[in-house]
């Protein structure tokens, strides 16, 4: 399989604080890679770094063969990275339709056709298209955030904790929608998630972070959940 997104020996963080320490991770065409880890392990920072929202000290980021390490966030969006943040992922004061229009900024002429594709994936958004984004339910809001990002026509989707702050039934709905997006659009996804069980249902491969370093990178079929627990609970220091 072709490598789509390559994070190579990345050391990055915020200001003087280093969060990711020599991290390497590859996302291949058609894959869903789940980035797991305890709180504070640097999961979300992986996505923010891929998107250009942190300070990279060393290492490189390659998207479809192009080095994007020095590109600003808006340049990476144009290059094909679609990032859906965990929080603050929609413009609350704008309608659903206008939020989607924001996503289509780079290709405004094809908006009418493209938005129908998003409505086909998330029919609820079509029903609620006149509503204020700030009045949507948690699940609808998450779908709107993903829908707006899909209108960028990204070659890679970076999803930051799509299950956070949602009721269990809504989490199921959101994950079904993500699985549908993956199936229909064949888009590779780098998924950061706290809900390990849900992430494993979707992912082909798992990458576990411990204090900003990669502690495990393996296909889901080869991952033993006991190993995951050990990595989460004792920070990767095996006691047996």
């Amino acid at each position, binding site marked *: 399989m072709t490598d789509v997104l390559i994070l190579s020996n990345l050391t990055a963080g915020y200001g003087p604080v280093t969060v990711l320490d020599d991290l390497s991770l590859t996302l291949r065409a058609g894959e869903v890679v789940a980035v797991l880890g305890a709180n504070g392990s640097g999961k979300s920072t992986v996505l923010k770094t891929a998107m250009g929202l942190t300070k990279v000290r060393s290492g490189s980021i390659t998207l479809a063969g192009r080095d994007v390490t020095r590109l600003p966030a*808006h340049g990476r*969006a*144009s290059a094909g990275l679609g990032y859906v*943040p965990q929080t603050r992922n929609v413009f609350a004061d704008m309608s659903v*339709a206008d939020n989607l229009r924001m996503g289509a*900024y*780079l290709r405004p002429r094809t908006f009418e056709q493209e938005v129908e594709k998003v409505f086909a994936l998330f029919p609820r958004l079509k029903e609620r298209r*006149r509503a204020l984004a700030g009045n949507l339910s948690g699940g609808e809001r998450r779908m709107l955030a993903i829908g707006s*990002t899909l209108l960028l026509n990204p070659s890679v989707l970076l999803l930051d904790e799509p299950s956070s702050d949602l009721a269990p039934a809504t989490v199921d709905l959101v994950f079904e929608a993500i699985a549908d997006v993956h199936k229909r659009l064949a888009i590779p996804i780098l998924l950061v998630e706290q809900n390990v069980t849900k992430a494993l249902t979707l992912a082909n491969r798992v990458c576990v972070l411990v204090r900003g370093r990669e502690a495990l990178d393996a296909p889901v079929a080869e991952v033993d959940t006991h190993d995951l627990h050990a990595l989460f609970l004792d920070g990767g220091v095996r006691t047996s």
Partner: protein
Amino acid sequence: MLDFAIYCLTIVAVWSVLGLSLNIQFGLTGLVNFGQILPFGLGAYAAALAAQAGMPWPAGAALGLAFAVVVSLLVLLPARRLSQDYWALITLGAGELFRLTALNAPALGGADGLTVPRFADPHLALACALALMAAAWFMAHRIARSPFGRMLKVLREDEVLAATLGRNPVTYQRTVSIIGWAMAAAAGVLYAHIVGYVSPSSFTVTETFIVWTALILGGPGSTLGVVIGAAAVQLLSVSSRFVAGWIDLPADVLANGRLALFGLVLVLMFLFRPQGLIPETKEVRDAERH
């Protein structure tokens, strides 16, 4: 008395332009500019320098606008790489640098300042000020309603999200800053010809904060609110002189008392009406309609 009323109206109109110029930066875009008096001062000094060189007033106006655009680009160059917290510091520092330069440069008249030919007819001055205010109002209103203005509001709400959806925030911020600075410079040119004199003491940080008071009192983001705020602040400022006359207050106590009053207005607005007297109208556009 009529002349005084005309003068007051003229000054209100000039300060409204200054308020509107700050409003498109902060009210619409969320850029904290603590040096908005700098382009105003550049305009005023350009008018004075042109007059000293025997040039007609349009030359001074053109010079003022050119200064404002060039200096705004220079000041905002480092701000590109910094977060908006630094934007406030950079603009504050730039404003003070300008004032201190004017204070110490003999070519700019030093502390004595420079004289500028005044409008011969106060009615003409009022007409010019009102015309400039109308032009600034029209421009601010058009910007707020345009796709460009909607994008400015989006950046104000969430710059990072806008960037991740492919917008370059810097392009928008730079454009709106240049427009805002040019608007303030035009007000400065007019101000110089109205008062007939420019000196560093007219362009202190305090003046910037008076513009901020007008903006916060009227309503950030609201074009009408800012004009009402500017009128309230300037009329309050002017009328305090009469109060001082009645109760026989020394000039320095009056000046400080006025600032304390503005400070109190700011605190009360933040506490009880942060959206301002005339809040910005939030429109929910219906994408089906266009």
